[in-house]
């Protein structure tokens, strides 16, 4: 049986005006099983986010195939939802109205929307903030709204593009643990792009390490840590061992690049 998400020889170049094309991805191959939590790490500009955007359906590859459930991805669809690094909340909408956005675009009746939003507000721990506007929230709370909005449409795949990169370190640790709890309850397939080795190791079933631009899969590491995972697990020798393994693969790629 074909994997749930499968990318085969996926390539994409950007063609900026009056400049040479830049290859963002070349022959990317990758497979993800249903319900799996997979992180993608790689040097800056290696095409991690580009890959997520192709998967989301916002941009199209030049060549290669990308299939979800054996069906090629041709455009956006509510079976996939993204949590954006910069949140992407509509500032003129309340928390509840932001969470309802996807449902609204799908044409879900108001009553069902409200019910679903209430459910999700509880899930992400934003009780009492339904009527608040994004500018009244902290970064962590904004991303809770972002997560709730993505989950509202009940997607099969959750795409997360450095979702916690804009948060401070403590909020980040907290959000990671909560994300794991939510993931264990909802059992979504998650593709999680990050720069943080620690984050990738802590959250994932598998970590995909990409090469420097143009991006390809360099290595895939299975993270054998038992679940449910908690913060204390990060202080164990096994965890450090995993981080070191990821670092050693990634290091070669960072070294292969011209100095920043």
């Amino acid at each position: 049986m074909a994997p749930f998400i499968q990318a085969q020889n996926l390539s994409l170049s950007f063609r900026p005006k009056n400049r040479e094309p830049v290859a963002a991805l070349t022959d990317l191959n990758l497979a993800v099983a249903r319900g799996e939590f997979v992180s993608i790490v790689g040097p800056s500009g290696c095409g991690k986010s580009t890959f997520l955007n192709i998967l989301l359906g916002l941009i199209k590859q030049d060549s290669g195939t990308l299939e979800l459930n054996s069906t090629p991805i041709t455009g956006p669809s509510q079976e996939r939802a993204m949590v954006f690094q910069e949140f992407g909340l509509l500032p003129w909408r309340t928390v509840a109205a932001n969470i309802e956005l996807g449902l609204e675009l799908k044409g879900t009746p108001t009553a069902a929307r409200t019910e679903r939003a209430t459910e999700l507000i509880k899930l992400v721990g934003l009780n009492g903030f339904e009527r608040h506007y994004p500018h009244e929230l902290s970064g962590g709370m904004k991303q809770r709204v972002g997560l709730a909005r993505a989950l509202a449409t009940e997607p099969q795949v959750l795409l997360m593009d450095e979702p916690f990169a804009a948060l401070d370190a403590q909020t980040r640790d907290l959000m990671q643990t909560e994300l794991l709890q939510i993931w264990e309850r909802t059992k979504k397939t998650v593709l999680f792009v990050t720069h943080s080795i620690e984050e990738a190791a802590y959250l994932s079933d598998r970590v995909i390490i990409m090469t420097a631009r143009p991006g390809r899969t360099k290595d895939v590491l299975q993270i054998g840590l038992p679940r449910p995972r908690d913060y204390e697990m990060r202080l164990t020798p096994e965890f450090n061992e995993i981080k070191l393994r990821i670092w050693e693969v990634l290091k070669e790629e960072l070294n292969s690049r011209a100095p920043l």
Partner: protein
Amino acid sequence: MTLKTHFAEHRRFWIGLGSVVFFLCAWELILTYVFPVNPFFFTKPSLIAAAFREQVQGAKLWHDLAISSQAFIWGFSFAVIVGIPVGLVMGWRRRVEYSLDPFLTALYASPLIALAPLFIIVFGVGVLGKAALVFLLSVFPFIFNTFAGVKSTDSLLINVIRSFGGREKDLYLKVILPSTIPYIIAGARLAIGRGLVGIIVGEFYAASEGIGFAISQAGDTYRLPEMFVGIIILSLIAVVLTEIMRKLEITAAPWRASDEVR
């Protein structure tokens, strides 16, 4: 609360008020004692105040105001109805932008008020001619500000709507229009000033009633206090309307107000 802390908290208001009072007193005193000018050629606050009282109690001022407002409201409303959609489409569709750009740049840069005689000839001396002039002057701030608002729409939000399967209509209604509203209100603020100029010039040029006509007639017949009454009423209207727009800007876009450093 003591008087002192009250003053400290409302410094801006009290100092502003003090400065206005000082200006009026100086004007009055200088024209009374230093240069006692013939009231035929210049006037002073006490005479203006007397004329103001008289005018407010009479019927002519209110009639003139009603006449002018009618033309203003018509012209301004059409500027809203035409300006906002044109700005929206121009901002979102490159081809529309490029084809309208030369006309708009030329029209916006040139002193459109020079077209007043033409408008009066084409549309007549009545409400229509003046309304057309108000429209001409106030439509551009709406077009340009709406356009600028659309251009500055956060592309991330566009992607959010797209990623949920939103169509072009959804992009307009759920992102572009709401994020452009603060720009439109700022445009309205500019448009009010320009529209008032349109009314006044239209009435200076050819009219038999209206506040602009009243001002020019009072001037022609050397009734300076009366002329100042018209001018003051106009300033009051302009200030009130622009202040309303400013308040509206804050309530319509609270997320921006909190970003601003006051």
